[in-house]
């Protein structure tokens, strides 16, 4: 089993964004920004560097733009998550979930507050 514990936070968020369907770079950034309520800002260098590395890992791949999506003159590349990417993301989610369970059992965090 691959060791997914090294999954970097922004890789995790990018994979999570793509889990719902293909997106282009700026859209990934905006989705992550909104979803994390401004906590994670994916700056361009980090974002596209990660997209290249994730492509190299074969966890995502470039894909054709969805129909009627504006491509800004074809310069927008869309990415979709691959099967391996799903496995990696799921493993990470399970790992996080197991830690969350432990934490809640110890009544840490809002979800663990005594009723």
């Amino acid at each position, binding site marked *: 089993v691959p060791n997914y514990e090294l999954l970097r936070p922004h890789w995790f968020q990018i994979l999570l964004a793509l889990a719902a369907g293909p997106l282009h770079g700026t859209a990934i950034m905006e989705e992550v920004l909104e979803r994390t309520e401004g906590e994670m800002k994916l700056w361009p260098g980090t974002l596209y560097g990660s997209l290249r590395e994730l492509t190299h890992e074969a966890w995502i791949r470039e894909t054709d*733009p969805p129909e009627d999506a504006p491509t800004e003159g074809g310069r927008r590349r869309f990415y979709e998550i691959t099967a391996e990417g799903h496995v990696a993301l799921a493993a990470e989610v399970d790992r996080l979930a197991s830690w969350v369970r432990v934490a809640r059992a110890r009544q840490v965090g809002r979800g663990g507050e005594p009723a």
Partner: protein
Amino acid sequence: VSSEPEPERDRGGRKHAAHERREHEGRTGQHAARRRYRRLLALLPGEFRRRFGAEMEDTFVAHLSGARGRASRLRVWAAALADLVGAAARQRWNGDPGRGRGAGNVITEGGGMGSLIQDVRYAVRGLFRHPLTAAAAGVTLALGIGAATAIFSVVDGLMLRPLPYPEPDRLVVVWAEKPDQGWYETDVNPADAWDWRERAGVFDDLAVYVDRPMALSGADRPDLLGGIETTPNLFSVLGVDVAAGRAFTPGDAAEGAPGTAVLAHGFWQRRFGGDPEVLGRELLLDERPHTVIGILPADFAFLDESPDVFTASRGDPTEAARGAHDHEAIARLLPGVSAAAANQAVRDVARALQREHADTNEGWLASIETVRRFLLGDIALQASLVLAAAVGLLLLMACVNVANLLLARAGARQTEMAVRGALGAGRGVLVRQLLAESAVLAAVGGLAGVVLAEWGRRVIVAGLPENVPPVFEFALDVRVLGFALGVTAGSVLTFGLVPALRTARPAATLRTGPRSRGSGRLAGALVVVQTALALLLLVAGSVLTRSLVALRSQDFGWRAERVVYLRVTPSETRYPAGAELDALYRELEERLASVPGVEGVGAIQSAPLQGSNWGTTVRVAGTDEERPARVGYVSDGYFDAMGIALLAGRTVGSRDGPDEAQVAVVNERFAQLYLPGVEPVGASVIDASGAVQVVGLVRDHVERGVNRAPEPALYRSLTQHPIRTRTLAVRAEGDPSALIEVLRQAVWSVDGDLPVWDVRTLADVVEMRVGGFSLIARLMGGFAMLSLVLGAVGIYGVTAHGVGQRRHEIGVRMALGADRAGVQRMVVRQSLTRAGLGLAVGIALAIPLAGALSGIAPGVDPRDPRLLGGALAVLAAVALLASWLPARRASGVDPVRALSAE
């Protein structure tokens, strides 16, 4: 964590948002931001930038459009920049993940952080491949940069660093002058000065002061203090406040006000151990009580002096008698007034005063000099410029040498570069890498240079003569380090760019092999430049060295070796009149003469090289022309004690009482200029005191400065003109320094409260006066030697490299029958042709240069052909040697091997 999927969202396009964004861009000028960001993308490797650049711009603009307000936009910019730098470094170190990790050795296009690091790694490796060349280049650069930085630290201290007063450029010194007498920059009259202050309309304020040695008595040890008696506004003119207590107020100058004194920090420490309780204490200065009211800050320096104590002058300057010029004036100009305008304004007032006070002010004008220029003096100014120019030339030579070394290597590396070019590295990349090598070299040379500079600065500052004004400060600080950095960067471009451009030439080399006639020509041109520069520095070095020798070995007209000076100021209350003074000095001279080991004693109001400038005007009886003359007041034994030869007649002194006829001794120059064709002894001249009989003639001797020719001088009797402060000149049988303490005690055995100061051997006084010239000459001599070495290395390097390049041709020549001697002659001839061209250029430049040196090279005619000839001969010999060594190697070429190497 809320991460509900939103399948219905407009996922790919987000048309609405995009539209809004574009509108926003138009509104707030985010096109400009996009352009600016695009420029930053140059940090990234080209491949990455081409693939993602456009989208990165979009993403960045999206970030920026979310920012409201200037501060938040700035934060976006900062974060984006940090992100880009990080990404650039990651992309470069890791390379394209598609090509595998560790691909950083692949040369990629682009600029910025990552590639910079890579270039530096390459450069260091490249330099280590040729450690000898690199070391030679590094040492050369370190010497050049070190010398330049050390000299800059001194020039900076003298000429650039602001003086330690607020708005120092508004401070000026005001002088009186009387052009019809040839008197310039002389002391001012307080009443005149106050009129300039009130009426010129250019001064914020003006202070008048006078140097007044003050005897401190009533304490355990009598002391003569350096004192300044000043109008109470001096400190406010300077813009300086006291560190403790208070400064003077106008009340301190009122008639009948109690005496007040402000102490210099150094004196307060030395005499009172820094005791703050001294404030309010009473000091007996010249036997009058003065209350200490203030202490000056430790960093306060008073122009070119180091006074111990300041007192307020009594009375209104306007009430001073006009005609007496015995004060100095310093002023602060109104903001925006130039020194030239102020000069014009004070001259206008001075002209008006000539009319209003015709009896006292006739012919008197005024002039203004900036404080810096006053402090610096002409010689230091010229020396600074000459040394700065010299060190600039030296640095240029060092750069030329390094360029030569790199050019030589460039030839050898053309194949390497061609291969790299063929493998896809663009010319830009190659040039950048070669420049990176230069930069690494310069950085190492620069660092070592700064270390050398600090050492050099210490040596130079230690060698500065004692009379350098204390306001100047010399430090290796941010400014100087900034200069070193600038010099280093400049030298990278000077020595790095040309070889880099040459080496990274198009890849045609790959076919023809590494042979470059062009680089030979360029190197040849550099040799010409270098030889010319070396000649200039050699000429300057020999002119200044010769001048120093001339100064030291000149015939002063007196004998410096065995004389000691002691300066004495008897107090006015104890010795009020001429008779008491005369008796005191007679006793002092007798007591000193009786000290074992003393051969002779005499007194003068100010001895040679003590800086006196006393002058008078005389008229030869029977003519009506007023002539300027230097005047000295002497006692019987003075000329004998100094070893000044009496050529005719007698000396003047105690036998010439106040009631006897006025008599004088003149020097040879006076006799030649003013009494031509007349027997000087027995002639009569008229000065302010009436008719004066010339009774003696003495040899010309140096008085004003080691670099000044003797002026016409008149020596009067101290008995007829009892000047209070005098220098006693004592001639010893042997080493005079052994006598100093005994002589001091002998003075105190006459009067235990008599302040004795400035006790020095005349040899020390001479050394102090020569010190500045000596420093300049030694530095210039050092630069000349360095330039000789650099020049030799340059000629050798270029010739040797040329021989290496021409092995094939030489082989052909020898195969065709040329003999070894013929080959040697050919190589030497070509090398010397270049050097000869350089010498010709150098001669053309050396002639005006030598003229420029005349001010700081007294005692030598810089146009003396022997100086240029000597420098030419030395340089030609060095050039010959530096050419012959490689030529000998060339003649050892084996034609068979040279030809078969093709």
